[in-house]
């Protein structure tokens, strides 16, 4: 019964998987773009 409950819970969580993927992907992209912009502004050496 416990396993059935966990299975049901996981099934519900899968509905928000796209949100997690999109937020993660865009978050990482945003962070990398910012880091790249900072690196290009810093003077060499």
């Amino acid at each position, binding site marked *: 019964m416990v396993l059935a409950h966990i299975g049901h819970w996981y099934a519900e969580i899968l*509905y928000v998987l*796209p*949100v997690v*993927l*999109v*937020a993660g992907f865009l978050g990482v992209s945003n962070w990398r773009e910012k880091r790249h912009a900072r690196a290009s502004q810093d003077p060499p050496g």
Partner: protein
Amino acid sequence: MTRRTAVRAAALAALASAAFPALASAHGLVGRQDLPIPRLLFVWAAAAVLIASFVGLAVLWPKPRLEGEQHERRAFALPAALGPVCGAIGVALFVLVVYAGYAGTQTPTANLAPTVVYVLFWVGIAFASLLFGDVFRPFNPWRAIGRGVGWAAQKLAPSSLPEPIAYPERLGRWPAAIGLLLFAWLELVYGGKQDPSTVATASLIYAGAQLLGMSVYGVEAWCRNGDAFGVYFNLLSKLGPFDWRGRELWTRPFLSAATGIVAIPGTVAVLVVLIGTTSFDGFSQGPTWNSIAPDLQSSIQDLGLGQVRALEVTFTIGLLAAVAVVSGMYRVGTVGMRSIDTRFSASELSGRFAHSLLPIALAYVVAHYFSYLAIQGQAIGYLASDPLGDGSNILGTATAQIDYGFVSANMVWYVQVGALILGHVAGLVLAHDRALTLYSNARDATRSQYWMLTVMVAFTCLGLWLLSAGAV
């Protein structure tokens, strides 16, 4: 978004679509209750469509197209005499509904009042507003009464008539937001919501409140801001191609008028209430809520409330929580946008992007109520002949019956999924177009919409999850 990021996102979307080819041939569905592919795949595919749309906007839509000058065209004008006639029809229908509610049978399905208010008025006019423009305005019964009273008073005592008070700017559309929340409470929470006499009483109370508002602030100012249904139907009409200006009909591109919505105070609240209450309507029919509600109801009963009142309090908590969740999701989007450019406060961004919530609100309404309108709306066939449920047969259609096979379960599911996807893509388009006018370059505009994309995907997943839960 850089081109490399865009290509990666497109690849992600394409991969998701390719991974679920069954969706492309999902015509073999035999009904919502027995889908050949899991509903979960519909959710993932819908998210993939949104991501692909976002990438398409980032690459192919570098300049604002919907904002600014509108391509509008005057189609035709109706005779001036039709205005009072439409108003009189609206008042007559209102009187009929109230009379039927009190004088007719108290069996909800056999009385005209509940079907007219909950199905034809609340849902039917919402659909009509999108397709034909703001058709409610000329038929608005309380506006017609207010205008009629004003006209008569002007004729009888032109000098002693006081000027209405200027409508307070800070009040904005808040009265409409509260009115919509109260209507949703009546429809989704109140135990006696289907009783025809309750519907009649609620209609009279609402009309009284509108007449009071009009008498204080003037008919047009109140109808534009304070009349919950007037505001609701008018906002929905902004998405469609028709615009009634007095008795003139103008045409315009789809969505374009939404950019002209001025987000006065309460506008976001109206849209959030619409999405939140519709969400709760779906959520309250699913297994998650039905496993929470009994425990919550029991806890409230322990405080000394009766069973029915405890259930109403339980559902009220659920309704308010749903509105709060939707509000929180939108807030996350606007606060996130601020990280791109701190010139705009989160509240300012909330107002500037409020119009992007409008197609989502419409999508939720279509997805949740399409089958309700198509099936339950047919009841008007027999109710038109027997409005009081007393056995009369005025038009000879009293024996008409509801055809439950009028729309198939397949069709309902396709309409629901299609409406949610189209609504959210339209929301993305409006938000992207607005971002292009706010930020100095297309790159920043696209980056600001990362957050909006996440919110739109979340709304889509929520909407489809709610529909799936209700279908179990």
